[in-house]
């Protein structure tokens, strides 16, 4: 009987896929689909990032035209990248959390707390390494607590991380007495991350690049990354497929906290301080960058590259407004518009996929 089926199956004609080399996979679930052969799927996927790249180029052109003297200088480009590095590292963690179906509002506050903890005189007495490790541990610990409340305490991510936002800022204020804590001259090694340059770029930009690359690898090449998509896309299916959804979710928030810890090191390097006011509203920038980058807020879909492009767009806008001497209110309005446009475009690409 098996044989009958097999031979029958062989002689049967299903319409063959048009393009054998179609890289559907290159566009994980992106699938805009004009009815033109499977190959287009892959191309549309790239085209989405292409849109972001085009936007970035346009902004650069605007910069060149409006402020030809100051935009294209190496010092300006370096400051753009340095600015992007801090939120960029946070954005990587945020991308994981959002793909996994959650949200983390506490990133800015956790970063502030980590920077304060690492710059207390007690911590500083152990030297720059311990300071960095302290920042990273504090970040990871706070993230782990978020994750624990969400997965095992069954709290809604929005609420759990909102509580963490408030509490972490409060704790940071308490520890620092609302004073800005300077990095001591003995620990100047931390500050050197921003002053030492390799190939013209400060070291902290390399840290950022490193985090992005590791993030990309983890998301795309490891079981952890693949399960993140599954957990965000359909948690019940993930659970029934044997994935420990709760533990995984907890890890995602811990990862986000870890990124906040790294970001704290970067902000200490850039500002030479630890402060409870660091990272104010960073959560909004990070979430916006992730969304502009094409990650679905409902989870299950998204890319690191998209998030980083989204972040660069945001940073570039800030930079252009500053260079042109425009006020920050207009800058906020522009950013708001960009989010709306990006989400509308996303919606369109979702709709055309039927």
């Amino acid at each position, binding site marked *: *009987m*098996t044989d*009958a*089926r097999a031979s*029958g*199956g062989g*002689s*049967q*004609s*299903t*319409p*063959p*896929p*048009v*393009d054998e080399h*179609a*890289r*559907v*996979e290159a566009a*994980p*679930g992106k*699938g805009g*689909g*004009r*009815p*033109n*052969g*499977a190959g*287009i*799927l892959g191309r549309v996927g790239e085209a989405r990032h292409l849109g972001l790249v085009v936007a970035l180029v346009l902004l650069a052109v605007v910069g060149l035209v409006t402020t030809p003297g100051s935009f294209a200088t190496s010092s300006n480009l370096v400051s753009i990248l340095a600015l992007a590095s801090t939120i960029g590292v946070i954005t990587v963690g945020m991308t994981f959390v959002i793909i996994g179906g959650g949200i983390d509002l506490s990133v800015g506050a956790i970063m502030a707390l980590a920077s304060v903890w690492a710059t207390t005189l007690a911590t500083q007495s152990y030297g720059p390494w311990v300071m960095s490790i302290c920042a990273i541990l504090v970040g990871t610990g706070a993230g782990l607590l978020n994750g624990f409340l969400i997965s095992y305490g069954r709290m809604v991510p929005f609420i759990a991380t909102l509580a963490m936002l408030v509490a972490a800022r409060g704790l940071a204020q308490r520890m620092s007495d609302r004073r800005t804590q300077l990095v001591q001259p003995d620990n100047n090694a931390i500050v050197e991350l921003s002053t030492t340059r390799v190939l013209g770029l400060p070291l902290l930009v390399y840290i950022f690049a490193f985090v992005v690359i590791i993030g990309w690898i983890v998301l795309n*090449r*490891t*079981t*952890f990354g*693949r*399960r993140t*998509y*599954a957990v965000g*896309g*359909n948690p*019940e*299916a*993930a*659970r*029934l*497929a*044997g*994935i*420990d959804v709760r533990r995984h979710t907890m890890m995602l928030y811990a990862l986000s906290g870890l990124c906040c810890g790294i970001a704290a090191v970067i902000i200490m390097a850039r500002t030479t301080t630890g402060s409870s006011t660091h990272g104010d509203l960073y959560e909004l920038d990070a979430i916006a960058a992730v969304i502009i980058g094409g990650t679905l807020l409902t989870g*299950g*879909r998204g890319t690191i590259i998209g998030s980083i492009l989204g972040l660069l767009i945001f940073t570039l806008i800030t930079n252009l407004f500053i260079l042109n001497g425009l006020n920050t209110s207009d800058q906020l309005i522009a950013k708001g518009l960009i989010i709306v446009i990006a989400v509308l475009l996303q919606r369109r690409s979702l709709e055309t996929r*039927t």
Partner: protein
Amino acid sequence: MSDLLVMRGIVKQFPGVRALDGVDLDVRAGEVHCLLGQNGAGKSTLIKILAGAHRPDEGTITLGGEEVRFANPIAAIKSGISTIYQELDLVDGLSVAENIFLGHEQAAYGFTRRGEMNKEASKLLGRLGHGEIRPTREVGRLSSAGKQIVSMARALSHETRLIVMDEPSAALAHDEVGNLFRVIRDLTAQGVAVVYISHRLEEIREIGDRVTVLKDGRTAAVGLPARETPTSTVVSLMTGRDVEYVFPQRPAPGSHEGRPEVLKVEGLTVAGHFADVSFSVREGEIVGLAGLVGSGRSEIVEAVYGARRPSTGRVVLSGETVRTGSTTRSVRLGMGLAPEERKSQALLMNESVGRNITIAGLGRYARFGWVDRRAEREAADRLVKTLDIRPPDSRRPIRTLSGGNQQKAVFARWLVEGRKLLLLDEPTRGVDVGARAELYAVIRRLADEGVGVLLVSSEVPEVLGLADRVLVLREGKVIHQSDARDLDESRVLDMIMEGSAL
């Protein structure tokens, strides 16, 4: 007699697949018109075009003598076509009544009139033989059969001339199908036409008037008389060859006797679903669970898998106690579950076919967490081939596959080495006649290799034909247990329905 609906030369091209390639369909008022075809033949695509959910690339639709063109589903509903889709499309967070009247809420001055909606909903549910479903209940808490009934009530809530039902019986048990047929007869008596899709040929005989057969996106036969056309003719029109609807050879009765027990369930109880259930599955044995929807079948399977917390009782897999609440551990111990509802419980809709297949055993293609994508792809390709999933491309997004092919992918997930016990909850839901025989063969082959299988199916002949031993359930209790060969369909039906309203 003039036709209510005429579809001519419908063409629909998807990326890489021509789903419909010039299909014709004629439906008369007051008839039950059956649409048959293999998985991926284009049935769902055709009815989505009719429902305004897809737009055809070519072809015309004439409804009641006028040519129509539906820009969206609302336009189709307004012209009197309502549709029950193959995949449930209810909003889990809303109540039963809210779901039924979604999009056409009964409202006054912008406020919904809950009382009236609930009353209307009750009436519709009562008509479907389910007055017991409370209209205020949240839909997410219903079983999948319950959801199916709600989406039927939704279709009935519109003024309609034509109701399209895409595999409405796939989620229903025997008695439910009876209710459904009663409703269909009511409707047709009032002159409403019904387009009915099912892979169960005996249903077509019972309810159908005429049959249209699709094959590979083309019309293979139009307007065949549903009762007179021999099954063999229908099947060979669908498949282009002869398929025998047979079950694989079973080992001799009692041949499992001495073999070790893979699964032992002792006094298992989930309050409100089933009580004090004990049984075992031996190596190489297929044990079937027969019972109505709501008899606790799926809940037993989920409790065995550790996905549902039992109130009392114990589940032992090859000597190790299964910890509840940890499906991860169950999988590690060698279990696998193909759940009942593929869309909400099994599929990752954003991902490719291949990734859907490999997600459960991702660890086996990875070293230190690093996925070997080549090994993964090869495994996926092999399974796509084994189960003849179409189109045969593991990189295609799974949401573009037909329902039956998605179902095969869910099953494929567990066709990996190292499984000791497979829990199959409606494994053939939506799978066509030919592919079904193939799935049966695969399941039997697994058993012959020593895997224990626990099979749940709403189709009694499937349980009787495939299983070695059968447990009959009624209202959460095991009321009978015996070798499958000692039972026949009518006896099992008698047992499971005894004391129920029918």
